[in-house]
């Protein structure tokens, strides 16, 4: 074996060295962004697939074919050496070459690209090590060697072997795509596919399959025996093996679809209680696999799950803010509109690059009605969340047209689409649909009139009533810029931070450069603006979590974040009384403010709850902060604000008020019900 390997090396060392030089220099030739190596699957091919893998293909193609052409392989077969040893020496040489090239390519990228880029070599290395399933992609060149070796056994021309290997890899790739499509059906995305099973299994099956077939053809095929007959038998065996492996893999993929996994594998991220407080939608996702999601509907009175069969894959948008969760209950609580990621199989059209659908879940009949599907490319985009008309007859949602511009689509409660309401013009960009009474869309509205200079344009917003089509334009003036716009539930006040002069573009783009600004409330009935706390500038522009108007619109919870580097980064939470123009600090100096969740008012507005993650200590092994989560309930009164800390646990995001005195909150994979004073805590799900 040693001699055979020596022979392969002596025969092919120049090709190897040239490949080595190429992959060493590749990061400099191609560019210096190490993300092209391993961050996501679609980036990986740039280096590994197309360079190392293709080079491996060439090497594999030259391992046998030229020796068949020269007759040297027959000379070798006439010696007392086992055919499988000859095959193994060739396979080992090809595979070792591929692995060395991959390793050198990775190291070159880490050291060269990583050192030059801002990510740094250490970060790149840690991301590589931390993403083990993706490392299976490093085996892809070996699969290519196997395919090329197989093809190389069947021809005298290396170039034909390369073409043959490509032809062999096409069905293999198609099978991968078919598998990926199967797995992605219902909303699973590449990240899940690649990380959890597709890459390791596909690569390993490819490796075993091509190696086995290559060894079989080499030791039993025509180049050894010179026979015509067994060639066809071998072809039959080969096709059979390919079919068996592919069917196995497809079944595996199908099983993966059907097998949802135990409930404990999911973390509940958002809850949405029906208006009659009898049902709750529980949105969850798998830790570490953000696109593996589930939606369960729970009948709180009956204590049972509705829709027990299908697992909805509802998008958990804004999961820290339950009121903006990507679903909407009808006013009579009989229907729930959800938006769901969806990439169905599209035979003859290729896979959808992105897809979503709007579905209507009927609680009485436990049936699902498809409202609208959006499949990219070549389709419109689902833009905004949903709102029901006050009567519950119509469901509204915003669609961004593929050609540009926006529509509000109105769908009847039975699922039939009623009409499209074109927005004023393309300059109107609906930001959110606000749960006012009646619902309105809050839209960015750029002034289409000259001058067009950014710094001198008008700052305008629009409130659009979908029921009447009326648009209430809010002109905030020229040479100002409003950020952080929100509206009170009664649609009386619009809150905004006013930057005057407007932010420079770099301040717009940067989350850290935005200066503090005064907050204003515009009274829409009078058109007057007044500041919240005279002379106070709020650090709100850098904080993503929104305000929380009380249901009657008289009070407001605000976060004031003084963003600084390191441990000085702090956030305070204030309760603002609009009428009295006074503010009470609810929470002060919260470290690591990204762990502060938006406030949620009780239905009658007497209490407000805030969830906060409190860092405890850093896990030395992973570098992650361990945390303790608290749900704090504040009860404003004449003599101050009473505070109750309840439900310490591991995760309290997406909590909701079940009634004026009861909260529902998730903790890990479970959902608990607790009184506002922290008593009577009990699990309701699962």
């Amino acid at each position, binding site marked *: 074996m040693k001699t055979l390997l020596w*022979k392969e090396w*002596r025969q092919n060392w120049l090709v190897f060295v040239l490949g080595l030089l190429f992959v060493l220099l590749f990061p400099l030739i191609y560019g210096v962004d190490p993300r092209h190596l391993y961050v996501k699957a679609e980036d990986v091919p740039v280096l590994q697939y197309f360079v190392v893998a293709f080079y491996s293909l060439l090497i594999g193609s030259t391992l046998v074919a030229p020796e068949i052409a020269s*007759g040297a392989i*027959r000379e070798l077969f*006439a010696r007392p050496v086992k055919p499988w040893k000859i095959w193994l020496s060739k396979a080992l040489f090809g595979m070792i070459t591929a692995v060395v090239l991959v390793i050198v390519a990775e190291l070159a990228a880490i050291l060269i690209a990583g050192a030059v880029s801002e990510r740094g070599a250490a970060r790149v290395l840690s991301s590589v090590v931390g993403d083990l399933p993706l490392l299976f992609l490093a085996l892809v060149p070996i699969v290519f060697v196997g395919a090329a070796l197989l093809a190389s056994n069947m021809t005298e021309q290396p170039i034909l072997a390369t073409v043959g290997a490509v032809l062999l890899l096409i069905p293999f790739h198609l099978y991968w795509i078919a598998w990926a499509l199967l797995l992605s059906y219902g909303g699973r995305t590449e990240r899940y596919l690649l990380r959890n099973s597709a890459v390791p299994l596909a690569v390993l099956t490819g490796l075993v399959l091509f190696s086995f077939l290559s060894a079989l053809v080499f030791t039993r095929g025509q180049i050894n*025996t*010179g*026979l015509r*007959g067994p060639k066809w038998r071998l072809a039959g065996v080969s096709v059979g093996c390919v079919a068996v492996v592919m069917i196995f893999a497809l079944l595996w993929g199908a099983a993966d679809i059907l097998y949802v996994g135990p409930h404990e594998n999911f973390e509940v991220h958002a809850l949405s209680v029906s208006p009659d407080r009898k049902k709750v939608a529980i949105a969850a996702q798998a830790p570490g696999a953000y696109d593996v999601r589930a939606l369960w509907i729970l009948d709180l009175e009956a204590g049972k799950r509705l829709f027990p069969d299908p697992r909805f894959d509802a998008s958990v948008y804004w999961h820290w803010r339950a009121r903006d969760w990507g679903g909407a209950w009808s006013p009579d609580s009989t229907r729930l509109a959800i938006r769901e990621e969806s990439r169905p199989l599209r035979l003859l059209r290729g896979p959808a690059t992105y897809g979503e659908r709007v579905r209507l879940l009927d609680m009485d009949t436990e049936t699902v009605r498809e409202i609208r599907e959006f499949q990219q490319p070549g389709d419109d985009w689902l833009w905004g969340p949903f709102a029901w008309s006050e009567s519950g007859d119509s469901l509204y949602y915003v669609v961004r047209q593929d050609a540009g511009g926006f529509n509000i689509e109105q769908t009847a409660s039975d699922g039939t689409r009623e009409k499209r309401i074109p927005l004023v013009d393309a300059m109107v960009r609906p930001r959110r649909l606000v749960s006012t009474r009646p619902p309105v869309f809050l839209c960015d509205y750029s002034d289409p009139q000259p001058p067009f200079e950014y710094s001198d344009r008008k700052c305008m917003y629009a409130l659009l009533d979908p029921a009447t089509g009326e648009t209430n334009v809010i002109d905030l003036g020229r040479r100002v810029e409003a950020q952080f716009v929100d509206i009170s539930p009664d649609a009386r006040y619009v809150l905004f931070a006013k930057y005057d002069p407007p932010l420079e573009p770099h301040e717009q783009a940067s989350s850290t450069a935005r200066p503090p600004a005064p907050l204003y409330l515009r009274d829409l009935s009078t058109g007057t603006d007044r500041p919240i706390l005279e002379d106070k500038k709020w650090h709100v522009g850098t904080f993503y979590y929104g305000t929380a108007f009380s249901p009657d619109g008289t009070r407001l919870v605000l976060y004031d974040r003084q963003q600084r580097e390191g441990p000085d980064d702090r956030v305070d939470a204030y309760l603002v009384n609009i009428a009295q123009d006074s503010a009470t600090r609810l929470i002060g100096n919260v470290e690591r403010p990204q762990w502060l969740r938006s406030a949620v008012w009780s239905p009658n507005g007497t209490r407000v709850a805030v969830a906060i993650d409190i860092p405890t200590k850093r896990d030395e092994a992973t570098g992650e902060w361990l945390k303790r989560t608290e749900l704090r309930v504040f009860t404003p009164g004449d003599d101050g604000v009473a505070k109750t800390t309840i439900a310490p646990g591991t995760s309290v995001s997406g909590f909701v008020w079940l009634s004026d005195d009861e909260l529902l909150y998730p903790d890990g994979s479970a959902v608990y019900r607790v009184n506002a004073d922290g008593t009577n805590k009990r699990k309701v799900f699962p």
Partner: protein
Amino acid sequence: MMDTVIQTKGLTRRFGKVQAVDRLDLEVPRGSVFGFIGRNGAGKTTTVRMLLGLLPMSAGSATVLGHDPRKQSFDIKKRVGYVPETHHFYQWMTIAELTRFTSSFYPTWRHDKCAELLKNFELDPAKKIKELSKGMVAKVALTLALAHDPELLVLDEPTGGLDVMVRREFLESIVRMIQEEGKTVFLSSHVLVDMERVADEIAIIEEGRLVKRSTLEELKDKVKKVKLTFAGDPPGDVQIEGARNVDRDGRQWVVTYEEFSEDKLNALRKLPVSDAQVIDLDLEDIFVVLVGKRSEP
């Protein structure tokens, strides 16, 4: 019981509908130079490849040095020196690299013998294969086939493409080896002049079937031609017993016998002939007689 190194019984090889080797029975005695002759495409190489386990047999059986080629090809290759018709060595290797590479496959490899053979053949170990002439490559092949002290040397058209001088030199080398070491040689060839110079036993194969198997002396004794000269007009309806061919040309007939004997000569002399001259045949003539068309005696 005769000590045989190769024995085949009903050895058959079919390629689709073509019967390349048809129920071949052979016995090659130890220590002999066994000539296996036949026309191009007669099935010689197919037989050799089957004997070495390089090609599965369709039917029948064979043993080579006591091993079954179907199951013990590896053992056969270890004990057999094989020189194929064409040589396909790695062109980039030097002779030294090639011998070192090949030696790793043979536990019985003798480096001293290899060096001696190279010296005798006047081969420079530092030379690359691609720089060698055909004759030198043939000598390299013979060196590789002999350096591991094989018990059986299988030569499949070893002198094909070589000029007369090189062929003679090559065969002389073989004969010298055989004489010195008492090895068995299985020599497959259609160059009968070479075969006649070295072979002890001959097997003739035609269209996959064994036509004749005998020692060379026996063959020469048996296959004869008799030239008859008639005094007058030859008889018109005479039948000549045991003749393979009778070539009638006026008063001169040439009678060919596959199994010649004095009795048959005496029988010829009873005809009205003025002269009956026995002609000895060389191997080429014998081959033509045996594989040529039979005519009416």
